Every structure is written in C-alpha cells, then in structure tokens.
C-alpha cells in the first residue's frame, strides 16, 4: 500500500462494530484536528409517508430536537450551544440523516444528546405548531423563488402522483396544515429504530473509546416492530417529456430545470453515468453545457448538470438561470449537448480528463472530518464496501468511452427530457 493509500479510509483503518440491536458503528481516527464529527442515518425518509401527509418525515426530523422525555427545548439546545456543538436532523427521500460536530473533548455530550433526541422525542404540541408555522413561511417564500418553482414543476411532471418522488420532502401548505402530533409520534414509533441505523464518528478520538461510548449509549435501544427498508422503482411509464412554464411575477430572470430518470447510486453503471455527466455539465467551467451556454453564448451565469444518484431512481438533471429572452436558445443549446453526448463517443481526451478529475480530487474530498465521515457513511449506506475508496482509482480507470455512451443512451434522451421554466411573463 502506498503512502497516499494509507491515508484513505478503508477496511483496515476504519474500526467498525455492529451492536446486537443492529446499529452499525464506524469510527475513523483523525488526530490532525481538534474536533469530532458524528454522522448517521436511519430509514425514516419521505417514502414512508402517505402522499396526503407529504412533509411528515421531515417535520419528525426537525421536531425531534424540540423536546424529549429527559430534556425540554432549552435543555437540548443549551447542552449543545454551551459547548459550541451542533446537531442537525434532515429528512431525505429514503432516510433521515443526522450530523453533529463538537470539540473532541465534548464527544460524550454530543452522543448523549443525539441518543436522547433519536429515541425519546415527545413532540411538544407548542413546538410542533411553531415548526409548522416556520415551515409554512418557508413554503410561501419558495412560491416566489424561480429556481424552486422550476425544479418542483420538473419533478412533478417527471414522476406521476402515485410515485413517492412526485412529492418534495418539505411537503406543501395543505399537507403540512393537516399533520398532527399523533402523526409524528406514530411515524417515529414506526420508522425510528436501531435496525439499519448507521453511525459514523470521525475526529480526534480513540476508536475503542468512541465505540464503547456509542455502545453504552445506544446498546439498549429496542424497537417492538421495526418496519423493513423499502425500495422505490422507477415509474412504470416514463414521462412524456414536454415543457411546462410557471409564471412568477416580479422577477427579472428565468430558471430552467430539465430532468429525466437517472441511475440509482447502486446501479452498475452509476460511475459511468457520473463520468458522462461530468463531460456534459461539470468538468472545467460546467462541462460542455457551460462552454456552450455560458462561455460561447454568454446566456447564463450558471448552467450545469447533475446525476441525483441516491437510493432510488432520482433524476439526471440540468439547471440554468437565464434572461427570459434567452430561454429558448439556452434550452436548444442544452438539448444539443445532450443529443451529442448520447449519440457520439466522448473523445479520448474527454475521458482521460474526467478520469483524472475523479481520481485526483480524492485528497480534497478527504481533507475534513465532515468529508471523511460523508464518504464512510456513503460506503456503508449504499453497500459499496469499505474498500471502495481504495479501489476507486482502478474502477474509474476501467471505464471506457463506450461505457459513457452506453450510460448516456440508457438514461438520456434529448427529445424525452422533461423541461420546466419558471420566471416572469
């Protein structure tokens, strides 16, 4: 193993343990810093909520920090803020994630609070009401955000109403208004438990001490009837593409969102799709799209593409912000690049550039506690194996131009892209 490989987290230097209740703990020592990060997840995302209760999972995540059987709101936040620590929960599609940081000397407090709010939230009615009001304010504000509106319109067109991805994790004004405290408690009871939970600790800690600390805190957590993790398939029928326009008054710029269903993070061709996407709208100044739309035509400040990945059929999407007069030209230019990527082999130079980009950025991805924790969590969450980063360069090196073309042809189609534009009339 080379010196650079030795600093990559892998099965030989990540201490791991699985508690009898199913919690997977992974610890990586990073003595170069003074702090520690805790990152984790469990199966409590929005796919487990009914469509009429859209936003429930994310409110459960947010409200878990408002009171427990042991601490009220001020006690939870006082315990953290007194020591300059932070702990945040966020509801995603498949999972609820949590992320915390503290000085290394305060890890025990961080773990203690995380354990308490994960297991014992009581969802105090007055705080749930307050949170509901804050969420409604955010949703109202977002109605006047062209980027949000374009992305939402694209998502709703791409996924039919009976598909969980049709709905945003934050819910809508109607669904948020109808969620009760009992709904929160029921969702928590059903979805929050040790089975399938991942907890990663990275920082200036001793692995054995951190493992013992987490084991002592979470070891006695039991859930009476844990629900199994669910998978989400792509919609039975691909959306027909087409274009939607959302008029948002008082704006000077239009936002464009285009999407088509892409690969999940676990798909065999995910890395090939990711490399192809980099050629399309990432590498250098936002790839071929950036070169065409920004550099050559001067149409936009931003125009880029991304592959959602994740646990299910997330979109492969393109976003751009342009003057309303330039919307048609920008869309035409982007579609031309999508067409080119899915009909022509990328050049040898494109492939080599992007392979080098993907493998070369590893040291930067692993520079901070948070970056290391995020990578270890992904390896565990997506079942990639803890030697994934160690083998990453070899995997990227094996990908061919034909693989890129195949991935583009599997997922992309210029004429089937679902397009949404939000902006002034």
């Amino acid at each position, binding site marked *: 193993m080379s010196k650079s490989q030795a*600093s990559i987290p892998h099965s030989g230097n990540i201490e791991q343990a699985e508690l009898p209740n199913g919690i997977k703990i992974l610890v990586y020592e990073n003595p*170069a*810093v*003074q*702090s520690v990060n805790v990152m984790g997840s469990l199966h409590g995302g929005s796919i487990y909520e009914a469509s009429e209760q859209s936003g429930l999972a994310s409110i459960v995540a947010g409200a878990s920090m408002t009171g427990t059987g042991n601490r009220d*709101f*001020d006690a939870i*936040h006082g315990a*953290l*803020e*007194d*020591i*300059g*620590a*932070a702990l*945040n929960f966020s509801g995603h599609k498949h999972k609820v994630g949590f992320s915390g*940081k*503290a000085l290394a000397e305060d890890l025990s407090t961080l773990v203690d609070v995380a354990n308490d709010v994960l297991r014992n939230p009581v969802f105090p009615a007055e705080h749930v009401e*307050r949170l509901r*009001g*804050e969420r*409604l*304010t955010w949703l*109202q*504000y977002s109605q*006047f*955000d062209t*980027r949000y509106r374009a992305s939402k319109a694209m998502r709703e067109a791409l996924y039919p109403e009976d598909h969980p991805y049709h709905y945003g994790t934050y819910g809508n004004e109607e669904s948020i208004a109808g969620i009760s405290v009992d709904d929160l408690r029921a969702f928590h009871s059903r979805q929050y438990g040790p089975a399938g939970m991942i907890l990663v600790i990275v920082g200036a800690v001793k692995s054995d001490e951190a493992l013992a600390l987490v084991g002592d805190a979470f070891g006695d957590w039991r859930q009476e009837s844990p629900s199994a993790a669910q998978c989400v398939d792509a919609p039975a029928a691909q959306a027909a593409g087409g274009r*939607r*326009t959302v*008029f948002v*008054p*008082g*704006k*000077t*710029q239009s936002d464009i969102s285009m999407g088509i269903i892409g690969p999940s993070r676990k798909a065999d061709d995910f890395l090939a799709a990711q490399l192809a996407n980099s050629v399309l709208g990432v*590498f*250098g100044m936002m790839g071929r799209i950036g070169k065409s739309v*920004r*550099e050559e035509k*001067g*149409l*936009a*400040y*931003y125009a880029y593409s991304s592959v959602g990945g994740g646990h299910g059929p997330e979109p492969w999407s393109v976003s751009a*912000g342009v*003057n309303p007069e330039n919307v048609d030209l920008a869309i035409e230019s982007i579609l031309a690049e999508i067409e080119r990527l899915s009909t022509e082999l990328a050049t040898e130079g494109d492939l080599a*550039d992007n392979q*080098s*980009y993907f*493998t*070369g*950025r*590893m*040291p*930067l991805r*692993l*520079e*901070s*506690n948070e970056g290391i924790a995020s990578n270890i969590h992904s390896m565990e969450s997506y079942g990639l194996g803890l030697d994934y980063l160690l083998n990453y360069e070899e995997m990227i090196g094996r990908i061919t131009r034909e693989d890129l073309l195949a991935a583009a042809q599997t997922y992309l189609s210029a004429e089937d892209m679902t397009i949404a534009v939000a902006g002034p009339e």
Partner: protein
Amino acid sequence: MPSLTHHTLPNGLTVLLKEAHSAPVISWWLAYRVGSRNEPTGKTGISHWVEHMMFKGTERFPMGMLDREIDRAGGQWNAFTSMDATKYFETLPADKIAIAMQAEADRMVNAQFDPDETESERTVIISERQGAENQPTFWLQEGVRGSAFRVHGYHHEIIGDETDLRTMTRADLYEHYRAHYCPANAAAIAVGAFDTGEMLAEIERLYGSIPATGAPELFARQEPAQTGERRIVVERPGKTAFLEVCFRAPAATHEDWMTLNVLDAVLSGSSGASDNKTSRLYQALVKTEIAAGVGAWLRPTIDPYLYSILVTLREGRTPAEAEAVLLGEIERLKADGISEEELNRARKQSKAAFAYNTESVTEQAFWLAQSFILGDVNWFDNYAERLMGVTADNVLDAARTYLVSRQRVVGVLRPVEAEEEQTQA
C-alpha cells in the same frame, strides 16, 4: 498551530506561509486589496467583472486551459470579490501546486481582456445580477446599504448597478486591472504540505521578477457621521415580510469589533459554530412565533460597516411588532449587560468555531488572506485570544456606544400582492 512565515519581496508582494501536513494538499491564494469599496459611481461592479475576466485567459494559459488542468489534477479553484478585496485560490494535491503558482503569477500582469470575451461576459454578469434580484431579500439589502452609506463605496452591491454593467467598457476594465493588480497591492498565501524554505524560493523565482509599480492609490471616501435614524421600505411581490435592523459597527481592526462580536454571540448566537436557539433574539422572536427565523452578521471589514439583524416574519405578524421586540431586547442589553454564563458560552463557542474553521487548508488560507486584507496578518490567529480578553463590562459599554438610535438604519421588505399566477402545461 504551526507558525506563520511573513515575508515581503522587494517588489512589494506580501508572502504568508503556513505549513500543515495533515493532508497531502496545498491551498494557494492571491489576495488583492481592491473591492467594491474602491469603485466610484459609474463603475460599480467593476472589481467583480475584472475578477470574471481573469478566468478568460492569458497568452500562456489560454481560456479553458486552467479549468482543464486544475480539474485534471483533482483540484478546485475559484475567486471571490468582496467589498474590500478580490481573492483567487487553487487547492490542489501538493505535487500539483506548481501550475497554480505559475498561473497566478502570469495573470497578475498578462490577462488579455479580449474585447469579444468582455462583451460575452457582460451578459453573464447581468444574468448573475438578475438571478440575485429574483430573491426579494436582495432588494432589501441593496436598499439598506444605499441608505446607510451615501458617500462611502460600501453603498452599492458588489455585483454593481445594472446601468453601470451596461455602460462600462473594456478600457475601463483593463485600466482597473492594470491599476490594482500589482505586487505591492497583493499577498500570496500558501497553507498546506510544503517546506517553507522551498516554497519561498519558488515564490521568489515566479513572482520576484514582476515589476514593482508601487501600491496604487485606492479610491475610498469616508462616510460622514450619521445624525439620526434612517428608514427604508422596499416592496416586492410575495407573501413574506422581512425586517432588517442595522447599527454602525467599527472596522475589524478596531478594539471594539471583537467586543461587538461577543455581543452578537449573546444576542443572535451567530458564532459560526452552533445553532442559535438559546440566543436572546431567537428566544424573543422565533420561540414566541413572531418570526420564522432571525440571523445577524458582523462582518470583518476594512472600514466601519454595519452590524445587521435580519428577521423573517411569520404570516400575520408585522415588522413593527418584531422591531419593538428586537429593540426591547437591545434596551435590556444596554441596561443590564450580559451574564458571566453568557460570556463563557460565547468563549467556548468561539473556541469550537476556530477549530472547525481551521480543519481544511483552504479555510486556513482564506482567513490568512482576509487578515492581510484587514491590515493585520495575525488578525485571525489572534482571534480567540482577543475574544478571551473581552469582559462583560466591555460588552455593556459597546452596547451603549453602538446600539443607539442615531446610528440605526431600519429596512422593511413589505410583500405586495402578486398578479394571478398561471401555470401552463
């Protein structure tokens, strides 16, 4: 913390070096003492536009070449224009840093400002401004700054006024570049895995031959004293009201700045480390369901700027009632000061924030660059020490000195009825 090497080349270039061997990466920065504060009326936004033009290539490094080379090396690079400075950085694997050092030396003097590229970038920058205009709070911020500063360059947005963006010429941009991009107006900063002696020798080789032109005379006008409260109302389509209350704050190198920083930690909890839910303003405004959120900013600036508090109102609540509560909290602070407990919490939060902010070499180099811009290269390294020296009495004195009505600027974003929205499929 490793010690800082501070050196000045014969041509006036400041060099700041700090070794950090925790990861095999180096962050390389060039910071120029020119920002939007140095722009006269008619040329607002010129510093930011020049920053964009610096990515358009030189004869040695044509446009696109560095995008490609830095991405191939797995690095990241970007630039920021602020009110006080323009900063460029590249963070790369340590064995690839040479190209960044060469490129920054080259574009300090050889940027091309191709006329066609200048025109193409004009529309990109107008698009950037229009994208910002789509956020209602941009209009509030622009209004408040314009009201707070009549003479000083802090009065306009960094992006500039659209009328200037439409009328400035290539000659204006090139003149601004030639006047301000010179060794005596800049600092070269490196943090990361290098040997200081070798790095210094390489800097002398690459930058030592750049001609000494002397430090430019920077356009800067002193703001006259404010003589009474100023108020401004901005109306935009939407449903969410905002209140911004600002007080004049001293320059970052003034001894009272750190005292106000502690005051802010108590008032808003904006320590950069933790959440702010135990802070006085959160408790008074958010927990009471008047506001959906509250935040505050005390920016480290060369000249006296503003301490700003931004309140997002909940539906049905008015800016006037939020203002009354906010000012009530300020009067309480001025009457009773802060407790030792609050002071100790602010100190602990600062210690944690310092640890988080120095995890990556990029963050460390950013703060060194910022310290240079402020005129004290030890400003960030001494940050925690200065904060520990602040007493509760200092905070009381600062509250009574700075948080007074004649130094206050109040802005209200009043949402107005939008025309009926339509969605076309």
